[in-house]
């Protein structure tokens, strides 16, 4: 099996923190673990963890209160959803759509499949 996730660790760590925010494990305006605590629990270099926090701060998902640590922003969930949708519809959909096209799946078929998927989840 070829494992395709070759993204750098700092990207994966940032993603993991986003998952925890979406799962409500880290709530808005609450403190998340420090860079060092996170580095220890994930067994990664502290500089790598710091890079992940930098990305999230730049994206507006977390913010730094001087001396107190990092906190989840008010709009973190909305920001993460928006960014993830962009990635999903952008680079991640490329392969899926190219395969659909080769198999000549019509837009209607795809729409029905998606509707079916949603109703099966209810």
């Amino acid at each position, binding site marked *: 099996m070829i494992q395709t996730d*070759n993204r750098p660790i700092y990207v994966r760590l940032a993603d993991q923190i986003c998952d925890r925010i979406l799962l409500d494990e880290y709530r808005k305006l609450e403190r998340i673990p420090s860079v*060092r605590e996170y*580095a220890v629990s994930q*067994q*990664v*270099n502290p*500089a790598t963890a710091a890079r992940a926090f930098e990305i999230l701060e730049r994206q507006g998902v977390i913010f730094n209160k001087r001396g107190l640590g990092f906190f989840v922003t008010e709009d973190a969930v909305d920001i993460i959803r928006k960014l993830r949708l962009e990635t999903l519809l952008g680079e991640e959909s490329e392969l899926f759509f190219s395969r659909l096209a080769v198999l000549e799946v019509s837009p209607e078929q795809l729409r029905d499949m998606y509707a079916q998927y949603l109703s099966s989840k209810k």
Partner: protein
Amino acid sequence: MISLKNVSYRYTGSKRNSIADFSMELSSGKIVGLLGANGAGKSTLLYLISGLLRPTAGDVNVNGYNPWDRNPAFLSQIFLVPEEIDIPSISLESFVKAYSPFYPNFSEESLKEALFHFNLSPDIHLGSLSMGQKKKAFLAFALACHTPVLLMDEPTNGLDIPGKSEFRKAVVKTMNDERTIIISTHQVRDLDQLLDHVTIMDNNGIQLDESIAALQEKFTFGLAPVLPETGVIWSEPIMGGYAYMKMRTPDQQETEVNLEALFNYIYTRKPINAFQA
């Protein structure tokens, strides 16, 4: 700061240099992975830095000290964990009592914590331990000394699976900006996520000396059923496709550095330096 200038070392009776005209500089606050084939001189380099060997030529300087002078002030700042550990057959308590006074930053608490995570009790007798347990006890002591320079030669050899993960945690916990940790290893998968910096050497010197961040900027690494069409500088068939390394173009996402691929690339490439090209 650790600096080596044109350092050579030849073991007595040997016809060739183990290390030849070797130069490197390391600033503090880094965890450095030292990679090289068997016999590349990795252990020799660690012994030169710690003052166990005297260079045949060139200068070694560690935080302002010449290691070979073996100044007590220098020796209290450095700790070496050799690949094969020879510890006396005494209780851990006596061992700590005898050796910890040499290290002003030694922390009893760090030692207890590391022992606990390695699943060792503080009242053990070193003579009754298995090889792996001895290694754990020694590593726990080494980390607890909080020396500004910590050198470890193949630290994960002999550790069990949970032991490797506890070792990584302990290294991160004891790391700070004033500390330099050099880890020589072949077990790159045990340690790659800990490293800031990679140094690959052979007997002719340093073949690569770069930060992980710079490597991520310069190269991408991947696994794919079919090789990318352009830019591939190294590849190897694996089950279901290829592992490859290619030059990164600015529009491409960064990838995690595959140290095995990097090592093989450095050892098999023609003598051109990708960083100068």
